[in-house]
């Protein structure tokens, strides 16, 4: 399995806002352990809260990375707030809306709204607020007291470039 917790970027306003979606699928291995059946009940497959936070981190991280043309190594430095109120189950769609609150040479802070859509016989439901996740990102090269890191931007992998390309967002050149 690849470490990708968003499926598509559906809106990007540079330096301001990014909206991404994720379809929760029964094909994801971890859902079969979270939570597995026991002697008194069937399995309860729900997306782990930590991975929902990671989905927001990827959404907001792409927004912050895009702001400087993916030249900065943008790393998640702090989860300032994470409040999740609903469970996401297989078949549900999660919508992440990340907005930049502060952006400097050193890093950025973002706010995030997470919404849940469920399928019904009439189509997708109205969105319900699943939670809110606020994050702090660090621009790695500018924050470690002169410590150096590989020149190659290891944060934004080729898989992210594929995701952005599929979403119609210009990202970074094909290597080589």
């Amino acid at each position, binding site marked *: 399995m690849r470490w990708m917790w968003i499926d598509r970027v559906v809106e990007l306003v540079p330096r301001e806002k990014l909206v991404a979606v994720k379809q929760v699928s029964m094909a994801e291995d971890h859902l079969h352990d979270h939570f597995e059946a026991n002697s008194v009940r069937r399995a309860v497959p729900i997306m782990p809260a930590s991975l929902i936070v990671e989905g927001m981190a990827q959404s907001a991280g792409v927004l912050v990375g895009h702001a400087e043309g993916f030249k900065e190594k943008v790393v998640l430095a702090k989860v300032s707030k994470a409040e999740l109120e609903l469970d996401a189950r297989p078949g549900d769609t999660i919508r992440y809306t990340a907005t930049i609150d502060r952006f400097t040479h050193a890093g950025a*802070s973002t706010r995030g709204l997470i919404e849940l859509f469920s399928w019904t016989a009439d189509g997708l439901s109205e969105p319900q607020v699943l939670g809110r996740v606020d994050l702090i990102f660090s621009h790695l090269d500018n924050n470690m007291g002169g410590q150096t890191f590989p020149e190659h931007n290891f944060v934004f992998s080729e898989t992210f470039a594929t995701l952005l390309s599929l979403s119609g967002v210009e990202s970074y050149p094909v290597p080589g």
Partner: protein
Amino acid sequence: MERTEIFDKVQEVLVDALAVDDDEVTSEATLIGDLGAESIDILDISFKLEQTFGFKIAQGELFPEGVAQNPEYVENGRVTDKGIGLLRERLPHFDFASIESDPSVENIASIFTVDALVNFCDQKLQAA
């Protein structure tokens, strides 16, 4: 802005950024030792202070970076006279008495108190 009002706002920022209780945020409390701030919290606190007070904080203005890694400023685990001079120049809002009596690197954190942060905001607001 009155100093008590500045303190109240700084307290609110620290409670939010460091997940501490407001009664822990006293004037004498040190951010790193007493309130458990880590390096990334300094960035978070800077963002929140900018938002609360409406001023801009340049990188390294609140707390200088890279001092401990520079052999000119730190020698054998102790801050040199030159290092103390630099800190004093760059951090006019801090009280250096404890560093002068014990210039160990670990002690640098002890001057970073809530009171120093209130001084910092007070000076920034007066300069605006």
